[in-house]
Each structure stands twice: as C-alpha cells, then as structure tokens.
C-alpha cells in the first residue's frame, strides 16, 4: 500500500506506540495517540455492541471505550494493573482502546514493513496495515480508522 505519511518523512520512518492485545504485540502510529491512561471507572452501556466496554469521562468529554481484544477477535482483554486505555481521536470523536499492556515506542521503517499475512495471530487481516519485524518480535501495525469503522 502507499503510505503518504511515510513519504513525507525523509527517512520514511515512523514512530510506533506498541502495546499488547492479549499476547499479540500491536503498534500504531504514535501521532494517532492522544493520550494513554488507566482510568477504569467506566459506565457500562447495556445493549451496546459486545466490544464496547463502556463510557468514560475524560475531562468532560464522553469517551467510548472499546475492548481492542474483542474488536480484533483476540479474545476479551483482561483488566488488570497493566491494562491501559489508548485514547485516539477519530473523526472528531475520542475513542478509547483498551489494551492489556503498553510496550515501548518503536521506530519503524516503512520500507521494512511487510504486507500483513491474510491471517495474523487469528486476527482479521484487514485491521492491519502491515507487519514490522524487530529483532525479537513481530509488531502488527494497526489501521486505526479501519478498526474504528463500524460499517463492515
């Protein structure tokens, strides 16, 4: 795929915020991330889609929290000490992605990013822009807009 954001950068590198969804290591462009917090005092919304954990007050804004594990079909994210909400801004709306654990910020070179295998770690491939290999691990790069797009 063409990555205009990558092209603009001289080195075609991008900083990735990486995090664990269950056991899978995923990443997203750090510029998508508004903030990361561990507010877990959510209000459940009965009758909401299954992947919606609840809604949260983020400094006066109502934020919908999505269980990224469920959304990516990686199984429910367990809430624990390490779990965090990654708040992203998408189409003028704040949405929180609940992940199991936050990992490092990784500098990824677009040239080294490989197209996603049709099925990575049981995840639907369409949510991923590609896969990046570090020395030890594989990082699945999430396409945030696709993840948040409900019109399947």
């Amino acid at each position, binding site marked *: 795929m063409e990555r205009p954001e990558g092209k603009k950068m001289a080195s075609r590198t991008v900083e990735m915020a990486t995090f664990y969804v269950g056991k899978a290591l995923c990443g997203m462009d750090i510029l998508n991330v508004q903030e990361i917090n561990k507010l877990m005092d959510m*209000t459940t919304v009965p009758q909401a889609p299954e992947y919606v954990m609840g809604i949260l007050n983020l400094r006066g804004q*109502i934020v919908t929290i999505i269980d990224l594990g469920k959304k990516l079909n990686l199984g429910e994210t367990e809430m624990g000490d390490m779990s965090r909400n990654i708040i992203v801004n998408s189409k003028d709306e704040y949405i929180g992605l609940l992940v199991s654990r936050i990992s490092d910020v990784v500098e990824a070179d677009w040239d080294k990013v490989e197209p996603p295998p049709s099925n990575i770690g049981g995840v639907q491939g369409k949510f991923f822009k590609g896969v990046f290999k570090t020395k030890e691990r594989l990082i699945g790069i999430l396409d945030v807009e696709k993840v948040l797009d409900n019109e399947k």
Partner: protein
Amino acid sequence: MTIQDDETLQMYLEESIEHLADIETDLLAIEEAGADIDEDIVNKVYRAAHSIKGGAGFMGLTTIKDLTHEMENILGKIRSREMVPTPEIVNVLLMASDTLKALMNDVFTSNDVDISQHIEALQAIAEGRPVPSAPATLQPDEPPASESAMDEKAGRISEDEPASKSEVVTLAAADNRIAIDADRAMVEGLMNEGKFVYLATIDLIADVIDKGKKPSATIEEMEQTGTLIACSTSPDRVRSMKLKKGQAADPFIVLFATILKPEDINVLFEIPDHQIHQVMPDMTVQCLGQKSAAAVTVDDTPEPASAVKSDPMAAAEPEPVATPAPVEIPAQVQPKTTAKKAETETSLRVHVSLLDQLMTLAGELVLSRNQLLQSMSSEDHRGSEIAGQRIDLITSELQEAIMLTRMQSIGNVFNKFPRVVRDLSQTLGKNVDLHLEGKDVELDKTIIEAIGDPLTHLVRNAVDHGIEMPDVRRGVGKNPVGKIFLKAYHEAGQVNIEISDDGKGLDGQVLAQKALEKGLISEDQAKVMSEKERTNLIFLPGFSTAEKVTDVSGRGVGMDVVKTNLDKLGGIIDIDSELGKGATIRIKLPLTLAIIPCQIVMTGQERYAIPQVNLEELLRIPADQVKDRIERVGDAEVVRLRGNLLPLIKLATVIDTEAIYVDPKTGKKGLDRRKSISDRRSKESPLFASAEQDTKGRSSGENGNQESDTRQPEDRRYHAASALNVVVVSTGAMKYGLVVDELHDSEEIVVKPLGRDLKKCKGYAGATIMGDGRVALILDVANLAQMAGLTSIEGSSRAAEVIQENLRSIREQKDRQSLLVFRSAENEQFATPLNMVERIEKIKATDIETVGGKRVIRYRGSSLPLFSVDEVAMVQPLADVEDLLVIVFIINGKEIGLLAIGPVDAIEFSLDVDGRTLKQAGIMGSAIINDHTTLMVDVYEIVQTLNPQWFENMEAATNDKGEAAKILFAEDSNFFRNQVKSYMEDEGYAVIEAEDGAIAWDLLQKHADEISLVVTDIEMPNMNGFELTRRIKASNAYSHLPVIALTTLAGEEDIEKGRQVGISDYQIKLDREKLVRSIYGFLTSM
C-alpha cells in the same frame, strides 16, 4: 455594487431585518385602524423604511433603495392624511416588504432582481391610480410579462448551465422537458426524513382550472401535505393568478416532498402520471407514468440520462455534486445558496448590561479560583470549602447569565402569525381574530428557531380546518368571527404554548375510523379507546394523508410531522377537542436543550437520568401491596394508580441488564432474581402463593424459586427495600411506569452526545457526567417504550381492558376510596380520605409548643395548630414518642395538623364501612383494612368540636340563603348516605334520601316543586348517576336543577362523561367542605 465591508453590511442587514419585522406588524395595525390613522405607528414605519433606504443608498443596494423609496412615498402620504390606508394599499405595501425581506436575505444579488412590478404598483398607488398590475391582483387575461420572463430566466439557468454550486442540484426529467434547481441539502434532508420527493409539471389550465379547481387551492393542498422545495413560479404568484379556461399558460413545475408514496401521490395532484417524476436518493429522476418513453430506470442511471442528446445537465446528474469549480455565472448565483449562507451566519444581539454581568461573574470566578488554589496549597480545608461554595454559586449564576444571552422572546415567532392568519383567512374567505398572549416568554434560541414551522403549521391548521366559514358559524349559533388564541406561559420550569380555536373541533369517531382503515389500530382497540385517545390518534405516524384533507375534519395533515419535530426538541404535544366547540393544542417545551433537569435513578449498579420533561411522578409500592396493586393483563404488567391502570416496564429487562437488590440489613448487593414483578410470592406467606397461582395459573413454581432463594435465607420481601420503585413517565400520548432499582435525586445535567459505536442503542438520548465524575446515560423514554413493545395504542387498549375489569369489580364491590392510614397509639389504626390531606410533615415531639391551652408548631413563619384524635374521640392517647407526624388538612381555609405516628400508608380500599358499631364523636365508622380494624376519622367533626369558632361565618352565610332548600340525595352505600346526609343537614339543608337512581327519580317526581338541587352517587344499582342525570336534564320540568355528582375516584373519563350528560359539578365523597361550598354556590346562584 459597492459593498463597503462585511461587518457594516452585516450590521445593516440585521438592523433592516429587525425593521422589516416591525413594519409587518405595524402595517397590519395601520390596516386595522383604517381611516383613523395612528400617526405614531405610521411614523414608525416611515422611519423604518427611511433608515432602510438610507443604508441601502450607502451600501449601493440600488434595488432595495428604489423599493423603499416608493414605500416611503406612500407612507408619507398616509402620514399627511392624503391617503387612507385601504386593505389594497396595505396589501401592496406588505408585498413590497416581503420582497424586501427576500432581497435582504440575498443581498449580493439583490441589485439584479426585477422589482419593476412592485415599483409600478407602488407608484400607481402614490399617484392615486388604480393599481394596474399589482402583484396581488394580476389582471385576468394578461399573462404577466415579467413572470414569464422570470420563468425563462429560471429555465435558462437549468438548461444552459450545470448546477452552479455544490449545494444546488438540478433535477430534470430524462427528456429534459422539465427541470428545476433545488438545494441539495434540503432535498436530501427531506428524503432522510422518509419523504418522497417528486418533480411534477402541473398545467395550471388543463390540470387545475379545467377541472374546476383553483390554483390557490392546489398550492394550499400541497403545502399541507408536504414541502414545496422549489417551483418554477413562486407559490404566491400562482395563488394570485387568475386564469381562464382554454388559456395557455406556462406549465407550473414543482419539486415537492411529501410522505405520500408513489402509488398514492396522484390522489393529490390528479394529473397524468407521466407528468410526475420521482426523485431518487441519488438525485436521478424517474417518471411515474409507464407510457413515457424516456422513463429512466433506477439501476443504470447515467446511461439513459446521457442518452438524451445535447443534455449536459442530465449527464451530470448521476454525480449530482457538480464540480464546485468556478462556473461562469457571476450574475445569477442561485438565490437558495446565498440565502442559506446568510441564515447560517446569523449573530445575536446581547444587551450590554448582560455582558457586563457576565464579565463581573467571570471576574469573580477567577478570584474564587485563586482563593481555592491558595487554600489548597496551604491545605486550608476551611478555606477550600468556602471557595468551593463560592464557585458553586458563581457557576450557577454564570450558567444562568449565559443562558440569558441565548434567550429570545417567543414574540419573534408569534409576530408573524397575524400576517399568516390574515392572509390565509382572506384567501379562504373566513373571518378570524387572532389573540396573542405571552409574547415575552423567553426560550432558548435553538428552540425558538425550531418551533416556528410546527407552530405555523398548527396555526394554519386552526384557520384552515378549525374555523368554519362565517355562514356555517352563524348557522350553528357562533359568532361569525372565529377566534384563535395563541398563548405562551411558563409553568414548572417549562414553557407551555397553547393554540386554541373555537372552530369545529375534531371528531374522534372519524379519526378512529380512519386509523382503522389505515390499519394503524385494530377494531378492538378502536372500541375501547377514550375520546381523548382517539383525538390523539392524529399524531400516529402514517396517519395523515392527502385524502383526509377533504374527508375528515381535515386536522391532522402532517400532525405526525409536527409531533416528530417537537419530540426532537424534547417537547410534548397534546390535543384536546370538543366536537363543534373547538380544539386546543398544548405544547410543552423545555427552556433550553443544553442543560436539563433530570431525575436520577439506579438500575443494575448504574445510574441513569430521566429528563424531567418526561417525568410525571415517582411511585413507591411497598412490598406488601405489590400483590394488590400490580396485576398481569395478558403479557403486560400494570399498576393501579388512582383508578387508572398504568403499564409497567422494567428498565433492567428492556435494556437487558441485571437488576440489583440491596440487602437492607447487610447493605450487600445481590442480583434481583424477580423475573416478573407480580411474581412476588413468599414462601412463608400462603396468601401470596395462592395469589401467584391464580394469576399465572402455575402451581409448581414454588420449589424452584425456593432453592434459588436459599442464598438469601431471610425473606427479603418483607423489607422496605423490596418495595418497587416506579418512575411514571409520559411521552405525550402515552404514560407508563418504569421500574427501577433505586430512586436518587433530581439534578441538572449537561447533555453530551454518545459516540458512534453507541448510536444504535436506541434507549439512550445521550450521556452526562455526574458530580463524582462518572458517566450516566440519559434515557429516551419514548424509545424505551417502543423497545418494550409498548405503543400508546397497545398500552391504552390493554389499560382499557383492565379498566373494564376494574369497573366491573367496582360495581360488584363497593366504591373504592383512597385512604391515608396512620396510627395515633401504637395499636390503633386510623384512616382518613387521602384527598383531604394537604401534606404530611415529620416533626420532633419537642418542637411542639403549648400556647393558650392549644398545641401548635411553628411552621413556615406561622403557627400551625395541632390536635390529636384522642382529644375528641374516646381512643387511646397519642403515643409518647420522639418522632411524630403531622398530617395537615385545610379546614375552612385554615391549616390544621393532626398528630399521628407511622407507619403511614396510602391505600386504595373498597370501602365497606360500618357506620354503626364503632361510631362515636370524631369517628365516622370503621372498616377492616389490612387485617386491622381501622377507625375512620371525621376530621371535620373533630375540628368543629375543638374550634367551633372557625365555622361561624360559613354557617351564618348558609342560613341566609339555604333556609328552605331541599336536596335530593341518591347514594347506595348506607355509610356514605348517612355521612353525607349529616353534612348537608348540619348546614341546615333538608335532605331527601334515595337508595339508588331509580328511587331518586320517583322521589323527584313526587317532590318536584320542593327540590332545588340533586346530589348523586355515580355507581348505583338499578339506575346509575349518569342515567339519572340524563333523565333529569332531558325533562323540561327538572332540567334547571343543578346536579352534583359524588365520586370516590373522579377519573378524567368519568368527569368528561358526566359533563356530557349534564352533571354540573363533581365532588369527592367525604370532602365535606368542598361539597358544602359547591351546594352553597349552586343554591345562591340560582
């Protein structure tokens, strides 16, 4: 055009539009005054026109300047009394001011607009000539030149140029014979509302005149059934056109949005099908007529369109968003586009004093913040607390002040109605007087803007369908001049708007019949509906169609649309109608949309907010009454509430969450396993179990439940926590009870929208942030009802069924009475009619003072006298406890408190009162309530004994008049008969008793001359109160007698029914004072 700069222009426009709004009202006033010229008003209009003219000259708006100049000339002549403002003159002036308004809205192209007609008309008036071709009075045979010119112009735009702006879409039939430009957003908006958009060509001669119709009527019909998006000729012009048969006229092309389906549309138009085209959501156009060769198929849109030769525009259609690239049409910018722009850029005038106030408050806020920060850093708790309080105070003031900046008076909307009513009534040949009231009532700007259309619709409806033609009115003995009242007022933090007319009203029967035909309700439902429910059918979606305009009374065209619009605003609409007498439509609106008061409830460990607009009351049904008050009808659970039945919905069930029950002892929370509310048997109470088996016809349900209950060894059903909390909500047409786990406070909340993932959850209207920072969802009660499968009709039919049942049981048993049960000593139970109780207060025994041998308590700045039952009746003395209750009654206009102890309870009881065994002073009788012998307290008698001086005045007054008055009193219950009879006899009336209606009727014949008033019960064997009244009112000899009906439960229905048969007044049994006053009132007024 030399437009100075945007700001100056904007200011000028705002000012001018304000002037214009005034001009309109003032012109109407001038017209009314006629020759009797009020110079002040004329001067005012003159000055307004003058300043518009001055500004226009400065701005280089020549057209506007020219037009106002001519207006000014005429006004000058009126002012100098050279001219009498006849309706014709005012008409021309009004037309001119309308045109001015249009010019203002589209100021950039205003100089290119042809206003020669207006100028000519105005000049003609000024010179005293007859108006040659005044816009309103086009000469019959002259096809107006300028009009066709305009048509050509419009036509040219659409033919030669592709849609010029992105917002404007050109819609054309495939053969390009007809085409029209429209605002794309508007078309799409209407489509999204579920409306169909049609492009139709109406040959005003062949299709209208030749069929014996009037163009104005056609337009009228269209405006009522839908929205005219665009037309080739302005509707006003068509309306005023006078065309003759056989004449050739330009086809009238309209783009029209309506809810009528393609197969029904021709009911309205009555023109050949091939002249109607439906506009598809992708802005392509499909012909309805099969024979049209060029019929475009839906699927492959680009192909047929472009197949048409030399038709660039049709080809552009499939991508209707034409390139926003500059197209060379500088002169003729689409008026719609610019008009739209001007509207969105509105600014608001705020009084400087208000701004100053805001500034002061902002200053204070900053100071308090500093104080708070300081206290916090020095850990001064006291200081932070004080600062916190100040901030709280300032915030509310600030909120209020900011809200004020958004407030506009409803007069802005109301002021246009005199004109609407005037024009419409003139067209229709009716005489209508419009009375406006409460123009100063202020509402949030957004609401003011949104309320305009629905209100206009309602007012037009009132004129068009409500008020009859003058001769019809004369025929039925009404004043030929119809009256329409438009009234706005504040009530309970909301704004109420009432539109009432004294026209023909709505015929519920016909409406029900229509709804039946349309399959909106079933026959059974129709039968059991009350008149009011029938009237409200008009709001059912899909109820209004074109044919009704002629068939039924006509009201209701588009009423469902009005309702939908109001629903969006959080408003409530209700209609009251009396056939032949008129109709009243009531609208309740919130003051603002942003911050709304809400009732907070809790279910399943989450809090929810219910907007106060929807809230009717809160109800708590104690555990031991659940069995009595909640019943199952079919699948539905209903609660008895003051004689009516209220469908119940469990919030936890509807939104599919788990109800939580709090153990009252341990405070532990557990899942509430009650599946249905009426299923509340206890394993220890055989009574509950048998009731359960009766209602559900299930006999083995016990064991399973027992096991699941073992988790909670105590029987929680006896605890107060097990009581049912019901929030009674209404959505206008329907009312239901929402069962929640807990009731919390009411709070003012700020509405926040929900994210896109939650848009599909229909049960919520939004979310809000509570004081503790957590989020709570706002419930949408209308959608909840829908989700629970409860529509108003269903609800009411169900309720009606049970009401029938209820009535039967009432007939079988005795009258039901609402009673307040309380105690004075621990083991003696008393009861008093609930409707006599004003309120109940909790006090401490130490607060009671003894002054002058009487007990009083200080209350709201005055002394409330107290008494206890044992002061008069031979009962046990008042319990000596710390916490006492005071039941406050108003006797003879004075408040008095009865000391009592709990538990107090309000019950509905089928009174079977024994008026003998335990009767004594202050006690009217006894009854068995909840397995206890309960003494019925005669508060009146007690007070009379204790404070005889309170009653002197009243009795004296009665003696003057009521000396020989004889009252016929029909009542089947011995207890009530004796009781009420004694009331009346105490007052000095002579009473003739009858045990039922039939006996009363016989007695009436015998004592015809003596009886001056009839008091009757409603439910009686042999002949009921209604029948008795009917007979009395039907006979010549007795129809003058006032009839007072006594009931225990005066339902609205009954009252209505009573009114119809001629009952003069309703009084509640045992409310001695009101009854006596009512009797006195009738006897003295005779």
